[in-house]
């Protein structure tokens, strides 16, 4: 049943993609969907691009298992849209063409800034892509009841092949329609479940919260912050703040979100599409709150943990319970529907990410850095399609290799890199007259290195037990992987990449608190310390960019 619904979605989206490919002729069609989407269509597509499996399955699961702390994620993800609305969306729409780097290149020296921005686009998108595909693999194998590493690799390869098809054949137009269909399905599924959950509790939220808290076995603490984040020492509280910063500042630096602003005809349409997106995404996160607490109340933490220790299947188990329970017709129908929605969600997000990365490779790195603007549109689009295949292949390979990694960490890392490397440079380019090429390169490279550097020194990589990361009880498999006795008390993070027993030099799991200020500071210092004098041309370039960004004169 699940498979039939899933295949129906795939068939529908493949049809859309082929239809879109007939309408895709110019580079503007391929990169920006011909700039012909309405604000509502683009707003829904932004929702489809943004509400990933990590949001739907991950946040509902976090709330179901840890109560209130899962909600912290939703809030950061939503408030972040105000940064995009007030500071980035409209100005970016007016001053750029196809990629994030276009805006920087409008006033800074083209080759260095395009190289840096292209690299950071590919890095951020690839991290996010691997996170989605690894998540897809674990969720799909749980839902289809297939187990074992070979099955996971097959799922990853299948998702990868579909996303490459959507992007290479359908371009931005096909990808956007896939995202619109997915967002409508996702909102419908979430709304149906929300109403069913609330109906069980006479539409009384307080009653739902009470049952959830009682069922969780943690009492009222379940409804308060602190069960998951900042539970141990002072460092873990800083880690919570670090996570909060990355979430709120990351969105407006995510390349696959930024290129969505180019799909509408004007800055005003970009503004209206962000406002639609805020409404849709906000409503969705409010519903995941009900779904998470509903899963805690109706399914129960123990049953969720048994199915998947990280809680990713909470939403699907809740669907089954709401439909009438395991084995009933209603139960399997609901399960099949929600599982198919989850597949759709993953496919739409990975397609958007692949498009962002391949656009940047073709438009920034190939056309403007390698060929110095001497290539024609057709060559550029051919390179974009090849790049989509290459990036898709690369992420299939990385995901197959990284299939046991923690998904939430990869998503949070992508946000942290976007906030540290991209956002400072975008804001300085748009608003700071004295900003320079050197500042942009310092900011992007520095933010990137700082974010990844902190992670390389963090408990993600070094899992030794400490005051921040207390020792955990190991399963037999984990103990064997770590090479320690199952009763050992020296392991704080059994999934650490380098060593389970060495204590991390930096106790922060989220790099944002260090790397975001570093990104801003390096961009500013780079701009202020350059040897080359700013001249009248630089000044004129900023004035022209500002004029275009504010009014839309000369916008593409």
């Amino acid at each position, binding site marked *: 049943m699940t498979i039939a619904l899933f295949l129906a979605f795939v068939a529908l989206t493949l049809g859309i993609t082929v239809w879109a490919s007939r309408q895709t002729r110019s580079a503007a069609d391929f990169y920006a969907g011909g700039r012909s989407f309405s604000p509502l269509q683009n707003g829904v597509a932004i929702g489809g691009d943004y509400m990933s499996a990590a949001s739907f399955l991950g946040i509902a699961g976090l709330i179901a298992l840890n109560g209130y702390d899962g909600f912290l994620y939703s809030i950061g993800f939503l408030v972040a849209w*105000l940064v995009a609305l007030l500071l980035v969306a409209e100005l970016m729409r007016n001053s750029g063409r196809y990629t994030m780097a276009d805006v920087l290149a409008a006033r800074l020296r083209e080759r260095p800034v395009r190289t840096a921005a292209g690299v950071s686009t590919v890095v951020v998108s690839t991290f996010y892509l691997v996170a989605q595909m690894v998540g897809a693999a674990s969720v799909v194998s749980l839902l289809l009841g297939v187990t074992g590493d070979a099955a996971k690799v097959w799922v990853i390869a299948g998702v990868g092949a579909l996303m490459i098809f959507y992007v290479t054949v359908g371009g931005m137009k096909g990808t956007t329609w896939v995202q619109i269909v997915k967002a409508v399905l996702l909102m419908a599924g979430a709304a149906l479940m929300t109403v069913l959950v609330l109906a069980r509790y006479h539409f009384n939220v307080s009653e739902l919260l009470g049952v959830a808290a009682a069922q969780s076995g943690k009492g009222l603490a379940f409804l308060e912050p602190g069960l998951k*984040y900042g539970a141990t020492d002072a460092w873990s509280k800083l880690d919570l703040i670090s996570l909060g910063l990355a979430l709120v500042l990351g969105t407006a630096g995510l390349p696959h979100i930024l290129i969505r602003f180019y799909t509408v005809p004007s800055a005003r349409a970009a503004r209206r599409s962000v406002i639609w997106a805020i409404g849709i995404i906000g409503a969705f996160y409010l519903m995941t709150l009900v779904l998470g607490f509903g899963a805690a109340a109706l399914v129960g933490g123990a049953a969720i943990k048994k199915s998947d220790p990280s809680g990713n299947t909470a939403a699907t188990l809740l669907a089954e319970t709401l439909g009438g329970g395991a084995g009933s017709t209603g139960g399997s129908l609901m399960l099949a529907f929600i599982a198919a929605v989850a597949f759709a969600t993953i496919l739409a997000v990975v397609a958007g990410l692949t498009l962002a990365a391949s656009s940047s490779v073709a438009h920034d790195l190939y056309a403007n850095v390698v060929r110095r603007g001497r290539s024609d549109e057709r060559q550029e689009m051919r390179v974009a399609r090849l790049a989509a295949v290459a990036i898709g292949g690369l992420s299939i390979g990385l995901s197959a290799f990284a299939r046991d990694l923690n998904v939430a960490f990869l998503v949070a890392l992508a946000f942290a890199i976007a906030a540290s490397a991209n956002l400072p440079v975008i804001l300085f380019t748009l608003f700071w007259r004295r900003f320079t090429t050197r500042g942009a390169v310092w900011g992007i490279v520095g933010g990137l290195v700082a974010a990844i550097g902190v992670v390389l020194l963090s408990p993600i990589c070094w899992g030794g037990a400490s005051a921040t990361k207390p020792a955990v009880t190991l399963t037999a498999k984990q103990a064997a992987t770590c090479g320690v006795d199952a009763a050992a008390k020296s392991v704080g993070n059994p999934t650490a990449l380098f060593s389970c027993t060495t204590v991390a030099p930096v106790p922060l799991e989220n790099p944002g608190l260090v790397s975001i200020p570093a990104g801003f500071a390096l961009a500013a210092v780079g701009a202020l310390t350059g040897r080359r004098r700013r001249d009248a041309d630089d000044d004129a370039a900023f004035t022209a960019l500002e004029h275009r960004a504010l*009014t839309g004169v000369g916008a593409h």
Partner: protein
Amino acid sequence: MSDSDIEVLRRRFRRFAFPMTAAFLAWYLLYVLLSAYARDLMGVRVFGNVNVALLLGIGQFASTFGIAAWYAAYARRRLDPLADRLRTAADHRTAGAADTGPAGATSGAGASDSAGEATR
């Protein structure tokens, strides 16, 4: 003329966007800091099982929706008419640069002044 229009547009945009960004970021950070360091306060129940933490969280949603709507109204009223006028003026300049250049610019400025009165 149009140079001062762009000044006004920039000032109006920045006067709204910058303080508002500072305000919502401060409000969000306050919420995160309270979640980390003021857990007793966050756990106080207001009615039924609804506590301060939940109300503050919902408050973040409400403020986000509110600021988005406020900005949309502000932009429609105070920014869009100016941007439109500047764009029309630029179109005139490129269209009639050869023959009616100075005359077109003058009449454009006159029109923009009266429109400026109307929006005030």
